[in-house]
């Protein structure tokens, strides 16, 4: 039997800079029942606080609701593992909520095959940004990626779309069903998960010559 192993804070993420969650990975338990607590100190504030909510985001996590989330203070977060033999603290993690945004994926994905006059058809993919405060005021930038694959293959084809909220795909297999997803990333933040999948059947005459 021994004191617990050193826990590790895996990551902290915020969907919209109004709340955030941290997750940790327990260390070894030293052969004894071990409890975990998350404590934090905020810049400019001497006090140490404990995690306000261990439940909302599931096991080994701490959820900071609006009430506990400030974009004006850096959080210094530590996870402590305690058993009968002692307590072991993780390395501290410094968190600035504005820099840990992992947004919700884009919304309103729409697919349309376009047939310009005498040109090759193409697939027009369009979407809307997720619902984030500052984005609506056009004040920070979001980048997007698209992935698509036909039902015949398992391999996704990924396209970087920069800041566009629409994208044209020219080369597709005619007569195939295609699945499309998009994801997004704020300029200093993390990629969202891939969003809702949409599907479209590419017509057989899709590669009409120029």
């Amino acid at each position, binding site marked *: 039997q021994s004191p617990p192993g050193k826990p590790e804070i895996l990551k902290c993420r915020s969907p919209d800079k109004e709340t955030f969650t941290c997750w940790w990975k327990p260390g070894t338990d030293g052969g004894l029942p071990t409890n975990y607590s998350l404590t934090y100190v905020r810049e400019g504030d001497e006090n140490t606080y404990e995690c306000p909510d261990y439940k909302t985001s599931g096991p080994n996590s701490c959820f900071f609701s609006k009430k506990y989330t400030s974009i*004006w203070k850096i959080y210094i977060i530590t996870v402590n593992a305690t058993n009968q033999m002692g307590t072991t603290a993780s390395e501290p993690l410094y968190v600035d909520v504005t820099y840990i945004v992992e947004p919700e994926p884009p919304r309103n994905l729409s697919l349309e095959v376009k047939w310009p006059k005498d040109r090759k058809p193409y697939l027009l993919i369009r979407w809307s940004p997720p619902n984030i405060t500052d984005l609506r005021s056009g004040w920070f930038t979001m980048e997007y990626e698209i992935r698509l694959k036909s039902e015949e293959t398992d391999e996704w084809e990924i396209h970087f779309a920069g800041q566009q909220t629409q994208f044209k795909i020219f080369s597709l297999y005619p007569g195939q069903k295609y699945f499309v997803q998009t994801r997004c990333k704020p300029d200093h933040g993390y990629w969202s998960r891939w969003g809702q999948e949409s599907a479209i059947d590419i017509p057989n005459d899709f590669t009409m010559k120029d």
Partner: protein
Amino acid sequence: LPICPSGDCKMSLQDMFDRLVMLSHYIHSLSSEIFIEFDQRYAQGRGFIAKAINGCHTSSLPTPEDKEQAQQIPPEVLLKLVISLLHAWNDPLYQLVTEVGGIHEAPDGMVSRAKEIEAQIKQLLEGIQKIIGQVHPGANENEIYSVWAQLPSLQAADEESRLFAFYNLLHCLRRDSHKVDNYLKILKCRIVYQNNC
């Protein structure tokens, strides 16, 4: 993630001003939306704008009215004016949210936006206080207060007076939130970028 090698974690002024300006921009956008929606639905043809002249409870605040004036005022004084402007809206915004239900078919969007503005102004104030603490530690605390005494007219029995009271309040909120947004953008360029945004 921002690294705090020395453990002395301090948010940079640039980071803080970037956030301030995002919030103030957003607050004004919301204020504009509420005003325009109210104006189109309730104020057309009533000549309210003529009656709204000199009608803002914050008009006594010595706020600059053009670029030169704004650039001549010392930053800490301009920051204090911004705080005075924001504090002047604590009570009116609270009453707006409370009383807006009294408007015939008040659109839901108005109430939710007013609440959102209230919440975002609190965020903005927190940020400004922090910046003042960093840029002008120990700056004296005296602040100019503007009294808002238009609650009775928000609750007036006759509809015309009540609608005008709302119009005037939203007109002034739009104006003052634009002032706050503009002043913070100037301060950001002055303090963080030495007037070279």
